[in-house]
C-alpha cells in the first residue's frame, strides 16, 4: 500500500465558544503512526472530529493525499474514526461488524469474506467471529472496533484513546497487537492520547497539543528528549524543570535536565557538583534519588538502579555529574 497519501493540514482553525483549536499546520508522512499527546481538554477529540468530518469544515485546508477533505461528508473522506467507546453495533456479530463498512464498496461476496477473515486473524479475534458484539469484553471490543475501521481500507485511521479503560495487561496486549497490525497494513494513523507511555511503544512521530495549540512536533525521541517549552515538558512528565542556573545555564531562563542524564560520581572529582541526598524513593524498577547541591541550588532528581542506590541513605554526601549538552534551556524568561 505505497500509495497511502499523507495528511496535510494548513492553518486549520476551529472555534467553539471560548475555545480555539489551531491554527494548526501539520504534515503526517505516509504510513506513519502519529501520536498526538495532550492533556484532557486540550482539543484532541475535537481535532479528530474535525478530520473525520463530524464537525463541519473549519477554515484552513485539510488535504489527504491529493484530496481536499474540507467539503466532503464523513463517508466520502476515507478516514476511519474509532471513538473512545468503540461504538460497536450491538445487534451484529463481530464478523458482521467488521464486514459493515465493506457493504458500501463494490466488492464481491467472497472478497468481502476474505477481507473479514484476514482482519479477524490479524487482530487475533477469529474465535469471536460469531459472537454478538454486545457480549465481547473491553479489550476484544477495541480490537473489533479497530478491525472494523480498517476493513474498508481507509487512507487515514483516527484512534481516540483506544486504550482508555483497559487494565494494564489488556493495554499491553492491545499495543503489541496494534503494532503488529500497523507493520502489516501500514495505514497512516493518527492516535490521540494523554498517556505518555503509549507514545514510546507505538508512535513513530509525535506531537504535543496544549490548549488547542500544537506546541511541538517531531520524532518521539526528540519530543521527549527536547520538549519545546516548559509547559510541554511539564505535560510530558519531565523532572528537574528549574531555572537554568541550577544546571550552570543562564540565570534568567528556564531549563531542564532529564534525571537519567545525571549520574553519580566519586566525591571530589573535578567537574562534579557535591550534594546531599534529601530523599530516596523506590519507584519499583528504579530508584529516584533527590539531592540538594551544597551550593544551595534547588534539589535535583536523578535515577539510579537498585544496586547503585543501595549504599546511600538520606543525608549522605554524593557528587553529581552531567554533560552540559543534555541541559535544555528554553527562551522563557525566569524571574526568580
Amino acid at each position, binding site marked *: 500500500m505505497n500509495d497511502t497519501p499523507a495528511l496535510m493540514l494548513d492553518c486549520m482553525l476551529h472555534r467553539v465558544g471560548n475555545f480555539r483549536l489551531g491554527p494548526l499546520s501539520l504534515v503526517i508522512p505516509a504510513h506513519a503512526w502519529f501520536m498526538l499527546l495532550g492533556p484532557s481538554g486540550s482539543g484532541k477529540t475535537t481535532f479528530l472530529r474535525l478530520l473525520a468530518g463530524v464537525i463541519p469544515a473549519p477554515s484552513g485546508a485539510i488535504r489527504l493525499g491529493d484530496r481536499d477533505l474540507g467539503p466532503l461528508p464523513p*463517508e466520502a473522506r476515507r478516514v*476511519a474514526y474509532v471513538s473512545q*467507546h468503540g461504538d460497536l453495533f450491538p445487534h451484529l456479530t463481530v464478523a458482521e461488524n467488521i464486514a459493515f*463498512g465493506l457493504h458500501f464498496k463494490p466488492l464481491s461476496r467472497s472478497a468481502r469474506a476474505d477481507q473479514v477473515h484476514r482482519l479477524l486473524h490479524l487482530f487475533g479475534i477469529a474465535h469471536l467471529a460469531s459472537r454478538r458484539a454486545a457480549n465481547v469484553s473491553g479489550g476484544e471490543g477495541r480490537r473489533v472496533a479497530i478491525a472494523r475501521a480498517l476493513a474498508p481500507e481507509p487512507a487515514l485511521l483516527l484512534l481516540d484513546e483506544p486504550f482508555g479503560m483497559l487494565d494494564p495487561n489488556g493495554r499491553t496486549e492491545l499495543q503489541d497487537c496494534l503494532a503488529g497490525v500497523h507493520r502489516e497494513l501500514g495505514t497512516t494513523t493518527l492516535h490521540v492520547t494523554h498517556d505518555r507511555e503509549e507514545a514510546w511503544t507505538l508512535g513513530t512521530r509525535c506531537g504535543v497539543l496544549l490548549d488547542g495549540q500544537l506546541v511541538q512536533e517531531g520524532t518521539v525521541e526528540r519530543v521527549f528528549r527536547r520538549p519545546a517549552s516548559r509547559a510541554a515538558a511539564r505535560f510530558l512528565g519531565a523532572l528537574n524543570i528549574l531555572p537554568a542556573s541550577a544546571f550552570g545555564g543562564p540565570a534568567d531562563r528556564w531549563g531542564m535536565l532529564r534525571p537519567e542524564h545525571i549520574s553519580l560520581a566519586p566525591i571530589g572529582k573535578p567537574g562534579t557538583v557535591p550534594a546531599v541526598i534529601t530523599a530516596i524513593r523506590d519507584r519499583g524498577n528504579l530508584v529516584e534519588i533527590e539531592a540538594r547541591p551544597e551550593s544551595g541550588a534547588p534539589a535535583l532528581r536523578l535515577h539510579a538502579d537498585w544496586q547503585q542506590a543501595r549504599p546511600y541513605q538520606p543525608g549522605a554526601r554524593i557528587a553529581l555529574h552531567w554533560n552540559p549538552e543534555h541541559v535544555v534551556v528554553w527562551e522563557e524568561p525566569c524571574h526568580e
Partner: protein
Amino acid sequence: MHRNPPSPLVRRLLPLLLFASHTGLHIMLGLAGWIEPFELFNLMLLTVGAVLCLLVLTERADYFMGMAAMFLIAAHALIGHHLAPDALTSGAILVVNLLTVYAGYHIFEALPLRYGLAFAVSYALLFELFIRRMSHAEPLFMLALMGLAATGRRFRMLACFWALVLAFTVCQPYAWETALLFLLILPAVFSARASVRNPVARAGLLAGLAFLSALMLPVLVLILAQTPQSIAAVLEAPDARDALLLTVGTATLATLILAVFGIPLAYALSRLSFQGKTLVLTLMDVPIVIPQSVAGIALLMVFGRTQPLGSALLNQFGLTLDGALPGIVLAQVFVALPFMIKPALAAFDAVPPSLELAARHLGANAWGAFGRLTLPLAARGLFLALVLAWARAAGEFGAVYFMTASPAVAPIAVFNRFERVGLTETAPLVAVILLFSLVLFFVLQCVARVIPTLHAPEGDLP
C-alpha cells in the same frame, strides 16, 4: 426455643397422673351418665391414652408431644360428644387437633418466634372465618387446619395457603379468578430481590400488584365465564364476525398509514432540533388529551359530506368519509397517532447517534446508516409502536362512532348489542374480542422478543 426438661420425678409422675385422672373421670362420669363408658370410641380413647402413657414413660415418644396428645385425648373423651354430633366427627376433630398441635409445637420449637405467632394468629383467623362467619363449615375448618399444619412452617407457603383460603371463602363468586390473581402476585412478591434490601420497593410491588389485579379481575371474570360453546356461537353469528373482520381490516390500514407518515416524523424529531419542536411534540398529544367524542365531532366538522372540505373531497374525488370505511380509518388514524409517534420516537432516541456516526465513518451515507443500522436497532420499539397503534385504532369507539356508526366496528357492535339485548348476551362477544386481543397481543410480544435490540440477548455471554 428451648424448654427446660422437668425433673425425673415430675417426668414420671405427670403422665401417670394424667392417665389416672382420665381413667378416673371416665369411670366417674360414666357412673354419672355424662358419657357412655362402654362405647367403642370412648374405650378406644382410653386404650390409646394408656398406650401413650406407656410410650412416654419408656421414653419412646417425645415427652411434650405425648403429654399433649394424652391431654387432648382425655379432654375429647370427656367432652367430645358434646362438641360433635357423633363419634366419627369427634374423632376427626381430635385427630386434626393432634395434627395442629404436632405442627404448631414443631414450628414453635424449630423456627423463630414469628413463625409460631403467625401460626397462632392463622389458627384464630381460621376459627373466626369458618366457625363464626360461615355456616356448616366445621368440616371445612378441619380441612383448613390440616392445610395450616402443612404450610405454617414457611411464610411463602402460608401466604399461598391463605391466598387459597381467602379466594375460596371471602371472594367466593370469583373464587377461581382471585385464586389465579393471588397465585400470580405471591410468587412475584416473594421472588422480588434487590441487591440491597429495599422494603419500600417491595411494599410498592405488593400494593401495586394488588391494585393491578383488582383492575384485572373483570377481564379474568369475563374470560373464565365463557365456555367453548358460547365462544363458538359468537363466531358463527354473521354480524359479530363481520364487525371483527372490519375492525381488523380498518385498524391494519390505519396502522399502515401511520407507519408511512409517523416513522419518518419520529426519526426527524429524534435527530433534529428545530424551532417549534416542543410545540410539535405537544401537538402530538392532542388526540390523547381531547375526549373521543370531541375528536369525532371535530373530524365531522371538517370531513363531513356537508362541510366544505368533505364536500370538496366528495365532488373532486368521489371520496365519502363520514358514514363510510374511509371515515373509520381517518378517525382511527387520528386517535392512534400519538400511540405511534411517541414509542417510535423513544425507539429512535434509544439508538445512540454515535453508532450512526460510526456507520458514516465506515462509508455508509445517511440513507445507508438509517437503513442498515438505525432501523434494525429501533425495530423492536417500532414494532411495539405499531402494535400499540393497531390496538388503539382497533379499540376506538367515540371518534369512529361519530364518523361512521354503520358498518359497525367491533367496539360499536358491542355497544349496539348491549343496547339491544343487554349484559348477559353481550358478554360472549366481549369475551371473544378480549381473548382475540390478548392472544394477538401475546403473540406480537413474543414476535417482538425475537427482534434484536441494542441490548444483547441472554445466553450468548462469554
